[in-house]
Structures are given as structure tokens and as C-alpha cells.
């Protein structure tokens, strides 16, 4: 099904007899596999409204992300949360849509400084499982009118409703960026370096560790960045001497980090969200022999782990879940063969009381249980 309007979509859902597999550009095949009739939002596309002077943009869910980024760039603006492109690492094809970004609450390295996709989402229109067209939030930056269901829709993977339109707060693209690169760091040293950097007033907008390098990004106006690069390097002297990466090389570098480039080609993939300072201990516990591919982002708060094959994946999965249970945080199995994603819990199981609320809420939004049923567990 390819509805071209909200009304068509509402009709399709209201009359649906069985499960629907909701997708945008189908580039983010995340969660337990869903068996159902595919329903794509791709034909509901187009930027509805863009006010650069108000830093707000409204677009239909099927609008290609690239089209939105190009329109913003033409005005020197961007989506601040730096949404990742899942295609390289998941091995998918297709065209990422803005609705998909929201449904999966996709954020990139800048999340550590400015917040996630859900933090910039101002409003959403969606069709619930009964076929009702609903709206929440709006297109203004400050809005506390009624309950915030906009946050609820972000990251709900189409299980509460099919998103038809979203509005965002956007921000200016800074004049320039410079990245400080420290070499020869292990995760413990990297996380300590990143904590020192993020606790400084120098506004670090990216803090990642990949292949032994700790990378710290500074963005802003020319003079300001020059000053902060010097001041930060000075403060971080105990952690070593830093190289400077800038221009296109820096852009490419952060795009690779954003897209978990170090893990491309892995057959199984996990995403671990935890307290940043717990990252080194977590890694030491779950992968003492360093057999998994690894990338750290968000100053330690996000760990990517991958294995070339799916062999032992169930054991690794159990080990990650057991360790995170002692520390707090959560583990998502982002990529694995279909059989594993069916038999293992892809998303971190929730405590019973929270799970009961989630079940009850889903029932209210999707009484026929037809919207991506079972995807989130």
C-alpha cells in the first residue's frame, strides 16, 4: 500500500483486516521481524513549510531526508541532531525518509551536545490504529499545551501510529569545525579524555573513540573555534598531544562515525546505551579479548559492537544483557539474521510495571494490534 494522502492512509488503516508492516524508505530494518502487508509512507512527501528566520521546518513523513537536508543547507541551516544513515551498516538500500528518522528516533554524534531527534521534534501528525487522523505539538519552539505525545511518537517504530507529518526546530550550520585527534588511546583513556572535554566550557559537539583514536569536534565561528581548540588542547595535555583534522577530512570522518562506519560488514550488531563512565568496564567485561568490532560515541554513552558472523551471537547477546543489567542502561540488537531477531528480544526487556503500561498504551493507540505488531517486543 502506498497511500498518497492522510485521508487515504486513514481509510487504509481503518479497513485493514490484518497486520501492517509500516515503512518509510525501508532503510532501517530494526526490531523483531514483522509479518504483514507492507504500507509505505513514501508517496506522502514534500516540505510543507520552512521558515529560516524562525528556525522551523514542517515536512510530510515520506519526504527524503536528503531533500530536507539540501533545503536547509541552502539557507545555511541543518537538522542539529545529525541523523545517521543506517544503510551502510545494515546493508539496506532505498531512500531514507524524515518519517523513518522520527519513527526510529535517529540521532548522531552531536546528540551528546544538543540532544536527540526527539528533542528537536516540535510536532507530529499521525494516523492511529483505528484510522483516526491525530495531531500533537505544533510548529513553534515552545509548546506545553496538553500532553507531549510528540516525544512518544519519536522512537515508537510505527507501533502507535503511522506518522504523516513532522515539524522540527533547526539550527544554523556553524562557519567552521576543527577536530582534535588523540592517538594510542584505549577505551578507559578515551572516556576520561572525553569526560574532561565535555566538562569544559568549550562546547564540544562530538566525542568519539574509534580505532584507537579519541576524536573531539569543535564547531562555531572562525575565531571562536581557533580559541577553543587552543584552550581545549591545553586542558587535555595530560591525555597526549592532539592532531588537528579540518575541512573535508573532518566532515568525512564524522559522517563515518555517525554511520558506525567501523562496523560496516558485521553480520550482527548491537547498540549499547549506558552511563558514559561505565563504558570501559562494560567493554572489559563483555569482550575481554577484544574480538568484537567496537566504536564509542557520545563521550562513552553509546557503544557500537559488532561481530563478523552470527556464530555465537546468542551467547554474546546474553552476555551484553547480563552485564548491562548490573550497570543500568540498555542493549539493542540492531542487526542479526531474521531467526535470531525472532527468537531473541531485540529491544531491552522492560521491568514488569513499565511493560504493562506500554502494553496498555499500545492497546489504546492500536486496538486491533495491526501496526508493526511485535516489532518492539
Amino acid at each position, binding site marked *: 500500500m502506498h497511500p498518497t494522502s492522510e485521508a487515504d492512509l486513514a481509510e487504509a488503516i481503518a479497513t485493514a483486516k490484518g497486520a501492517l508492516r509500516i515503512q518509510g524508505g525501508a532503510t532501517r530494518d530494526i526490531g523483531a521481524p514483522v509479518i504483514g502487508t507492507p504500507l509505505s509512507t513514501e508517496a506522502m512527501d514534500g516540505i510543507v513549510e520552512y521558515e*529560516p*528566520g*524562525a528556525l*522551523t521546518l514542517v515536512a510530510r513523513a515520506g519526504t527524503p531526508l536528503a531533500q530536507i537536508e539540501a533545503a536547509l543547507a541552502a539557507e*545555511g541551516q541543518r537538522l542539529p541532531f545529525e541523523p545517521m544513515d543506517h544503510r551502510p551498516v545494515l546493508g539496506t538500500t532505498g531512500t531514507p525518509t524524515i518519517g523513518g528518522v522520527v519513527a526510529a528516533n535517529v*540521532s548522531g554524534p552531536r546528540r551528546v551536545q544538543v540532544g*536527540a531527534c*526527539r*528533542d528537536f521534534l516540535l510536532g507530529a501528525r499521525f494516523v492511529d490504529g483505528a484510522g483516526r487522523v*491525530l495531531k500533537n505539538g*505544533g*510548529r*513553534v*519552539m*515552545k*509548546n*506545553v*499545551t*496538553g*500532553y*507531549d*505525545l510528540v*516525544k*512518544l511518537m*519519536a*522512537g*515508537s517504530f510505527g507501533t502507535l501510529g503511522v506518522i504523516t507529518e513532522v515539524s522540527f526546530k533547526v*539550527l*544554523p550550520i*556553524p562557519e567552521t569545525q576543527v577536530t582534535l585527534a588523540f592517538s594510542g588511546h584505549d577505551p578507559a583513556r578515551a572516556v576520561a579524555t572525553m*569526560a574532561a572535554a565535555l*566538562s569544559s*566550557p568549550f562546547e564540544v559537539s562530538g566525542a568519539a573513540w574509534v580505532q584507537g583514536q579519541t576524536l573531539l569536534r569543535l564547531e562555531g*565561528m572562525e*575565531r*571562536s573555534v581557533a*580559541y*577553543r581548540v587552543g584552550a581545549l588542547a591545553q586542558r587535555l595535555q595530560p591525555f597526549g598531544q592532539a592532531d588537528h583534522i579540518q575541512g573535508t577530512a573532518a566532515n568525512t570522518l564524522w559522517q563515518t562515525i555517525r554511520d558506525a562506519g567501523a562496523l560496516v560488514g558485521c553480520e550482527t550488531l548491537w547498540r549499547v*546505551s*549506558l*552511563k558514559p*563512565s561505565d563504558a570501559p568496564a562494560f567493554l572489559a567485561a563483555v569482550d575481554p579479548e577484544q574480538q568484537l568490532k567496537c566504536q564509542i560515541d*557520545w563521550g562513552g*554513552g*553509546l557503544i557500537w559492537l559488532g561481530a563478523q558472523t552470527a556464530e555465537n551471537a546468542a551467547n554474546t547477546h546474553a552476555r551484553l544483557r547480563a552485564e548491562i543489567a548490573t550497570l*543500568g*542502561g*540498555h542493549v*539493542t540488537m540492531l542487526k542479526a539474521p531474521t531467526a535470531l531477531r525472532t527468537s531473541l528480544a531485540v*529491544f531491552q526487556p522492560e*521491568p514488569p*510495571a513499565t511493560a504493562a*503500561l*506500554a502494553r*496498555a*498504551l499500545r492497546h*489504546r*493507540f492500536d486496538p486491533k494490534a495491526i501496526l508493526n505488531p511485535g516489532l*518492539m*517486543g
Partner: protein
Amino acid sequence: MEMPAPNPAVLALKPRLVARLQEVLAPDAVIHDEAETRAYECDALTAYRCPPLCAVLPSTTQQVSDVLRICHEMGVPVVPRGSGTSLAGGALPTADSVILGVARMNDVLEVDYDNRFVRVQSGRTNLSVTGAVEADGFFYAPDPSSQLACAISGNIAMNSGGAHCLKYGVTTNNLLGVTLVLMDGTVLELGGAHMDAPGLDFLGVICGSEGQLGVVTEATLRILPKPEGARPVLMGYDSNEVAGQVVSDIIKAGVLPVAIEFMDRPCIRATEAFAKAGYPDCEALLIVEVEGSADEIDEQLALITAIARRHNPVELREAADEEQARRIWLGRKSAFGAMGQINDYMCLDGTIPVSQLPYVLRRIGEMSKDYGLGVGNVFHAGDGNMHPLILFDANKPGDLELCEAFGADILRLCVEVGGCLTGEHGVGIEKRDLMVDQFAPDDLDIQMAVKDVFDPKWLLNPAKVFPLAASEPRRQAQIAAE
């Protein structure tokens, strides 16, 4: 403002309820004497008052859970209360409700600079959260005007903002986790020191739910390293249109000031008479503040003042030192007090798309003449969050009602131009009946469905947020089912 009639069956329960509450709380934590419950009869929306059945002041999450479980069992409504500074009547009791105040829960539980968060009990005041970390160079970003008094619990309930949210966001963007007690006494942990919530974003729904889904007893808040410095610049213009254009041009130029504040002529005159900050007598005044090292501030202000000059300001004043910066902010910070000197006032909180600013100000001016009530505008221009202050005389019969009608018209105007009823104060009882102007019946129904899930008996903070015509049938059905 209509409130539901108190349930006589609940009123009759008072002696037994008080006895049960006394079993789980310290003797001085259950306030039931009629003279003493008066202290809880209203919040900062003082036009509406109603003493509660009783008030409780628990000290721990366990006690909150006990109180809620007892009230749940007995079918007694509960109104959560932080510091009682709501301008929307968010903590207004009903005669058959228990006020649950978190004022005694104000400890700092954990400070973690490596991971940049602080965990506090929810009764702690906003400013004292920053107070707990500022000696080490950190601060908590959301800064509502009432920050000296308002509690984190209320900030979370209303998703409070402040002057600096253009850069730092509002409460929801700075909240990492909460301990939440449901109406039946169940204790939940949502979020925590990690950055993303697994599963559905319940934390995002709790923030801004006006105490209707659960009682937050502890909160994990993001703290930020303090910038090296900050400096404001003041600019005055002959017209609101031009000032609005300046705001837009600054934003489009790629600098992100930490605050852009706007005052119109009536407000400038009132504050000048009161605070004598030396503001120019002009149509529109902007205060723009930037942050960073001295050099970075110079760089940003050079760009901003160049834009300001292109639009022929009647005044352009850069703060050269701390004292001048203080004077620039003095008038803005005294604005509410100054208006209060003239008369009683009602403070509105609608948000509009920034591009609609000149039109909306003109319309408010016209309506002011029609209603015969004065109005001053002071607001956060960067994000379009307006605060029209309507002047009225509380002692003059009919003036409050006239003022409320004027306010409702302004808020409808905000919705009409693409904005919303409330940007940071919350709906409470104040804007409850205007919700139908912003939301279709189904949009309200899906919000109330969330309430059904978290609080099936509709006992928490009754008669707020939703129009009574929409919420009362749901609540009465629950009472009838008891």
C-alpha cells in the same frame, strides 16, 4: 472558572482518611485543621481558591507511594504540589482532594561531573539545583522566572522553560530520568544516567503532563559546564515590524544568541517608571545576550550589532562591563513587578511563529482598545513565546471576567496564526476550556487515553488540562463504577 462539585462521599471520608495517612506519615506531615489547610488553597493564580480536604508533606518516595495507595484505595483525588508557583492553577485543590506537597523532599542525592548529571529529590528548587554544582563550574540550564522559589517537580509537571531556552532547550531537553509513583502506589524508574530511553519514551510524556499521570519524587537532571562569560546588548526600534525583522535576521545570520528578549512601549514605560534602568522611550526594545570567552563574545556581538545598525536603531547599547550588563537586564527582570505596581495583571503565555510577531502585536493593540484594558508585552522573541500582561482592577466588579475574555481572545489569536495556547506555564485550569480551540475532539481523546492508562480512576490532579465537558464523563464513569 467552573470546578466539579465535590464528591460528598469523599468529604465524608475525611476522619478515616486522616487516620490512615497518620499511620504512614510523621504527625506534623498531615495537615487537616481547617485553618491550616488554607495555606494550600491556591497557587500563583490567586483569583481561584479552594481549601483541600487535607494536605500531606511526605519525606520519601516510600511515603509518597503509601499516600497514593491509600488515596487510591479510598477513591480520594490527589493534587500534587511543588512550590505552588503555577500561574495556570496547576496546583489548585478541589474541596474533596488531598494536596500532596513535595516541599520536604529537597535533598541532592548524587552529583556526577564525569557524566554531567545531578540527581535530586523533586521538591528542590530550580535555583538550588544550580546552587549545588556552581562552585564546581556547572549549572542547570532551564531558568523559569520563578526559579528562586519553583520546585523541580513543578518544572517537570509543566515542562518549564525560561529566558535561555533558545540555546539550551526546556525542561524536557534537560531531564534524563525520574522516579515516578503511579496513583496506585507503584514506583517506576524511567530513564537514568544514560542518554536514550529504551522502549517507548515515557519520560517524554511524563514531562509536561501537569501531575496527572504520576508523582515525580526524584529526578536526574543534565548539568552543563558554565560558559566563560556572557554579555547583553540592548537595541531600541521605532516599530515592532523592524524589531521583529532584526530578530529574524540575527537568527538567519547563523549566530545563536543564548537569549533574545522583547519589550513593547507600554511595558518599557512601566518598567522605566519603576526600575529606572535607563531604557529608551521607543516602540520596541530588544535585549540580545551571547556567551563565551571575551573574544568570542566580541566576535558574535560585532555580527549582531552590524545587523542591528542596518535597521536604524534609535538606541544601541553594548554592555562594557558587569554593571552595564546588570542595568540592561534590570528593566527586563523588573517587568512583571513594574506592571504589578500599576494594577493587577494577568500574565499570558501563548507562543506564535516568529514571523507573525508584528501582526499579533498590532492585533493585541487593537483588542486592548476594544476591551478598554491596558496590555504590555514582554517575551522571549527568539522562540516566539509571548507574555502579554493584561492590566485590570480586581476590586472592580466584572473586570476579572473582562480580562479573562480578552486573554482568551489573545490565545485564540496565537492558535489562529499557527501557534499554541501555552509555551511554558502549562494549561492548568486557566486554559483548560480553550483546549478545544487548539485540538480537535480526537486529538484530546488520544491524550485522555494516555491518562486512562496511567491513572484509570482519574484521581490525579482533577479538573485540569482538559475541558470539563470532555474529562468529567470519564471521571464520573469511574466514580460510578466504584
